[in-house]
């Protein structure tokens, strides 16, 4: 087992929302999120679009909006991160690969953005050489340096975003939805970048809704459902009829894939603020117990895997 880099424990993120008049309510978007990433490992967090996965990335980097409440602990290298620590290590040890070209300053040339803030000309020159080298690796010619973000094609923008992350030689890369809206070839290319990072010993946290992308490169996959991590499974478990998968939702998800029978499960994910008192999957579960409607199951640790279901209280 490699060294653990990132440890996210029982993180919840909520927003204060005004309902009618001055009545407030605490809207939980992430209720209980636990996961960990080790060196040279790719962990995918798989959840549906709009489920609040991106907030996890923002929480790790300490860039949540002001009205967000964060609880639980985020550890890096075994040390609990305070907001100040996050500000210290972001952009150095940990790097973010954002969703789209909108995360680049529209009025700044690409190379200046990639280099970032520099104290003096010497530092700038040094970083410029580094930047050129990494851009070259990612097949970005010298003409890209002087372009503005709106001039980049989708694939180029993706490569720019990936290379900006690598400039500081990070140990952990958090990629937030890196594949949507890209053609097959570019998706494959992007995923190969992550594979290469893994080979270089970098830990990758891949936040995505693309199950194919996750299955293609991730070592382990965390399933995110209605604000909870309900299972962390190994990649090899997603095979056959899904008999090695533990949580009924994960099984249903796997069997809903076109290649595996296209079976649909009734119902939909509860919206934020409508999550039932007991197990979040209670309404749709086929193996539910009586206590599931009242009591929330905890995440059960099963070695490399984790699952949140009463069925596995006594092990698999």
């Amino acid at each position, binding site marked *: 087992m490699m060294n653990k880099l990132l440890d996210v424990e029982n993180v919840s993120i909520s927003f204060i929302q005004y309902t009618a008049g001055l009545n407030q309510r605490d809207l939980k978007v992430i209720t209980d999120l636990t996961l960990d990433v080790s060196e040279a490992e790719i962990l995918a967090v798989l959840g549906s679009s709009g489920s609040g996965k991106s907030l996890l990335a923002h929480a790790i980097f300490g860039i949540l909006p002001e009205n967000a409440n964060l609880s639980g602990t985020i550890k890096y290298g075994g040390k609990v991160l305070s907001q100040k620590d996050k*500000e210290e290590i972001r952009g150095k040890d940990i790097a973010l690969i954002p969703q789209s070209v909108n995360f680049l300053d529209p009025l700044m040339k690409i190379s200046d953005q990639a280099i970032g*803030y520099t104290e003096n000309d010497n530092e700038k020159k040094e970083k410029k050489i580094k930047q050129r080298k990494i851009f070259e690796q990612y097949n970005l010619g010298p003409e890209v340096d002087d372009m503005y973000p*709106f001039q980049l094609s989708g694939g180029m923008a993706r490569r720019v975003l990936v290379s900006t992350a690598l400039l500081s030689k990070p140990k952990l890369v958090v990629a937030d939805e890196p594949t949507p809206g890209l053609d097959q070839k570019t998706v494959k290319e992007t995923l190969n970048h992550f594979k290469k990072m893994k080979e270089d010993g970098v830990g990758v946290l891949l936040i995505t809704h693309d199950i194919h992308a996750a299955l293609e490169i991730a070592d382990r996959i965390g399933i995110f459902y209605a604000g909870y991590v309900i299972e962390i499974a190994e990649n090899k478990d997603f095979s056959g009829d899904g008999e090695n998968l533990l949580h009924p939702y994960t099984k249903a998800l796997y069997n809903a894939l076109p290649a595996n029978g296209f079976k649909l499960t009734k119902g939909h994910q509860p919206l934020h603020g409508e999550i039932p008192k007991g197990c979040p999957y209670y309404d749709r579960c086929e193996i539910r117990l009586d206590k599931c409607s009242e009591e929330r199951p905890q995440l059960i640790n099963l070695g490399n895997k984790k699952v949140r279901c009463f069925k596995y209280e006594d092990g698999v």
Partner: protein
Amino acid sequence: MMKNEKLLKFLGKKLIRFIILIIFVILLSFLLIDLSPINPVKTYVSNMIVSQEQIAALEAYWGVNQPITTKLVNWLGNIIHGDLGTSLIFRMPVVDVIKERFTASLILMLTSWLFSGILGFILGVIAGFKKDTIIDKVIKVYCYILQSAPTFWIALIILMIFAVYLGWFPTGLGVPIGTLSEDVSFLDWLKRLILPMITLSIIGVASIALFTRDKLIEVMNTDYFLFSKARGESGWNLIKRHGIRNILLPAITLQFLGFSELFGGTVLVEQVFTYPGIGQAAVSAGLRSDVPLLLGIVICSTIFVYSGNLIADIVYNFVDPRIKEGEDNG
């Protein structure tokens, strides 16, 4: 090369629009003045005792009773030759009056325009950067007060404090009373410029500061600002690198679009400080039925405001790299 062509085409279009605009302004103001009870002959005669025949002779000489079309054609014919007529109250060519008055006003307007732009922008950036702190609240309250207070009232207060109570500056006029214009020193002139300039500046600060503040806060919430933070940039450097870069152009555009308000403000401020500028001339021309001067000032101010808007358009369309480079590629 491409870019120059684009710019020329753009300017050509603007020129045609400008000609249409000025024709309409001329027709409309000429018509309005003709319909108004203003009687230039009465003004000219003012308190002198003259006979009916003399008045009739004057009316015939000036063509008062001609149909409006004839008057208009006469007047337009003269304008094309650069002759705007003779001012009735200054008894000299309108062109000379406007030249002299407009120069004085232009200095006043441009200095306060620059000053208010720079000061407003700085205040806006500080307020946005320090959002929700005491500094932000102080700047906001200051701007709200300025924006809701009438211009002449602020001018009066400033006049009261600095000229009357403190006696630091003269209460008005372009030059000291009883001095020949040749003998007026630069310092005398500067002393009289400062108060109206400060008044116009602090009034102009409010809108640009509030706009800049809002824009900066907007930028601070964008994805690219967030990403720069995630990449380890922070504090003032972050504002400088990504904030100001993205709000400077809209702020400059707004400041150029503010030319019309600037002109309106100048009229009031010049009146309060009796500063001998175009605004004051406009007011006297209106009150004392000086038709040629009034029409001349209308044309002149149209050109001024239109140029402001034109510059704003040019800045917006040709300086922003997104539009500039996009046109080159496209």
